[in-house]
Every structure is written in C-alpha cells, then in structure tokens.
C-alpha cells in the first residue's frame, strides 16, 4: 500500500453532466470513493464509475448537530487517507463552495503530510447566473449563508444583488432542518426596510438531473414567509436601485 492521497471533486448540480472530464477520471481511478450527492441518479452514476463508492449521506442522523456530522465526515476521510488509499471524495455542486468538510479535510490532510487537492465543479451559483440570466458584474453580487447573514448582521448594499443560501434551513443547526415560516418572517422583516415588501425576489433551486428544469419562483418579498422552500432553496434579491458613480472617485481615477 502506497502513501495515501486525497482528491476532492465536484459532481456539479446535474447528475453526470456538470462534472469535468478530469474529475470523472479521478473517480474512476481512485482506490476508494466517498461521495455526498443530492440525487439518486448521481449516486448510480458514481457507483457505476467506481464500485468502491460509499455515500456519506448516512452520517446525517436526525437530532445530531450538523457541526458534529461534518466533523465525522472529515474524520472518515482522513482515516481512509491514513490507510494509504488514493481517496477521491465527490461532493455535489462545487466542492469548495459552501462545503465545510472539503476544506477541513484538505487542510488536515496537508498538515499530516499527505497530497491533497480540490477540483472545481459547476456550483448552484453558476447555474443560478445562467438560469436567472443576471450577470454579477452588472451591479455586484453579495452571497451569504442565510442564517449567518441574519445572525452576524453582515453589512450589505441593496444596490447590489443579494443571494442567500439555505433559506429552507434558516436558524436551524440540527438535522434534518425543520421548515418554520416564522424564521422566514424574521428574514423578511429584516430585508423589508431596505427593499420594501413589493420588491420582487426569486426562490431558486437548480436542476439536478440531465433533463430536469430548475425551480424558479418569483414573488414579492412580503410573500416570502408563506412560500414553499426546501433545503435546496436559495433566495435571490435583485438590486433595489442602480448605484450612482461617485464624482470624486471618477475624478481621482481620471474618468471624467
């Protein structure tokens, strides 16, 4: 048995379609594959490409804080690398975007002297830009995990787009998250002073199979507490108004 190594890849959002050829090759050649995906088609696809594949989804135990679940995932990954395996771990979407265990596992593997790297995949945000047809360069784009956004009261600019992830798990650190309209009411109350209740927002969920369509629900902000959501739901809040260039800054940059 040689020295263990770790490669973490992203399967993208749509099963078998969003993954890069390089990541596909790593899955096929690995001694062992762990994976966490969002649909059974991806699960079937990974299992066909490497019969050693083992899902991490079973580590989600009802009632266990997600923080502890993620720690267990990291420990499972490191244990296999220490055994000398060429380990490939596949996460749905982009493995480095809003994924705690991937970064933590790579940091710890490197700290222990193992080769560890990450390969990107198509993220939910990538799909959102395409499906909703907005360019983050147009007015800027702010992106937060929804619970952190509220709890930490991050400063944000309503002149730029705002993306809030995991609104279906708002304020809940347990597994499974419990949908609670009262929490969406808290979010709505927080946003309404900046945008107004009539401001149009989008609840978005990326497609997960090759022929599936994304879920795109457009609604006024005030209707958010009553809107159906899942743990895959993302809130997109378009800019309230365009930003105006600052004359002084234009002068300083010789742009007048």
């Amino acid at each position: 048995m040689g020295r263990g190594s770790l490669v973490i890849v992203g399967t993208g959002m749509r099963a078998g379609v969003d993954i890069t050829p390089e990541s596909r090759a790593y899955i096929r050649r690995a001694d062992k594959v762990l994976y966490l995906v969002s649909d059974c088609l991806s699960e079937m696809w990974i299992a066909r490409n490497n019969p050693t594949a083992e899902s991490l989804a079973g580590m989600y135990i009802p009632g266990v804080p997600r923080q502890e679940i993620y720690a267990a995932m990291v420990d499972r990954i490191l244990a296999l690398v220490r055994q000398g395996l060429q380990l490939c771990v596949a996460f749905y979407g982009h493995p480095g975007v809003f994924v705690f265990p991937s970064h933590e596992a790579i940091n710890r593997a490197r700290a222990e002297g193992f080769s560890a790297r990450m390969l990107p995949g198509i993220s939910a945000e990538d799909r959102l830009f395409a499906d909703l047809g907005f360019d983050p360069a147009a007015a800027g784009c702010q992106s937060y995990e929804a619970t952190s956004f509220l709890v930490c009261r991050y400063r944000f600019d309503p002149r730029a787009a705002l993306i809030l992830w995991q609104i279906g798990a708002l304020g809940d650190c347990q597994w499974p998250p419990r949908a609670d309209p009262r929490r969406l009411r808290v979010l709505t109350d927080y946003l309404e002073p900046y945008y107004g209740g009539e401001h149009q927002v989008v609840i978005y969920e990326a497609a997960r199979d090759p022929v599936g369509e994304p879920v795109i629900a457009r609604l006024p902000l005030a209707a958010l507490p009553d809107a159906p959501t899942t743990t895959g739901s993302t809130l997109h809040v378009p800019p309230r108004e365009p930003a105006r260039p600052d004359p002084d800054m234009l002068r300083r940059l010789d742009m007048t």
Partner: protein
Amino acid sequence: MRLLNSIIASLLALIFGTTAAGSTARNDDPQKTKFTDFLFSLMNEPTRLVAFRENPDAVLDAADLTPEEKETLKSGDAGRILSRLAQAGGTPVVHPPLIVMPTHGQPPPPPDRHPGTPAPTRAPNPSSPPPPTHGPTAKP
C-alpha cells in the same frame, strides 16, 4: 469540547462506515430499466443530451420507453423523474443534504453603517433582537 466532538465523530464514522445500508453504494444494476438506461445515455453522450434539449420529441420517439416515461422526461419535473428513478432501484433523495455550517458567535458589527451603504427605505424595526454573542464554534 474538542475531545467530545472527536469521540462523537469517531462513533459516527464507525457506525456509518460499516453498517448503514443507506450509506453504501448499492449493488443494484443501475441500468435494469430502460428509463434509467435512457438517462444514462444522456449523461454519457453529450451530443445526445443536446439533441434532447433541442428536440425532445425526436429523441424520445426513437427511445424504447412507455408513454408515461416519455411524458415524465418531457416534463422536466425533478420530483417526478426522481420518483421514477427510485422505482428503478435508486435511493430516493428528495432534498439535497446540507454541507454548510452556519457561522455563529462572531461579534456584532459596530453600530455605524458602512460608508456608502444606502439607508433603508424606512427605519428598521427597533424591536429587532440584538445579535447573539455566543453560539457554536464557527467554521474557520
């Protein structure tokens, strides 16, 4: 706390690395149905996927699928597609698992707004609760 987390994590890994049927890739033949065959062909043949996107009827007409299966595929409804896949032996995964940890416990920002940040269209609710100053350990 770190020791406790480590113990819990080890127990979870031990349990789920060895016994949970749902955590291990199934040995079912993933192509035992024509419906699953068809989807795998789209996943493995990008030109066929593009052909489906451009003209689904033409591709489906040539496929050996039931009218119900064709209708399911044309609908693009992820729930219906996953449900039919589950009938074909796949593990139904209704909602994507979360792998993001909310960050708690950071100190609240100073009361002044960031320069250039536009004011709310109306005053924020003064009864809003203050931000918490404690909570689970934040991710790095």
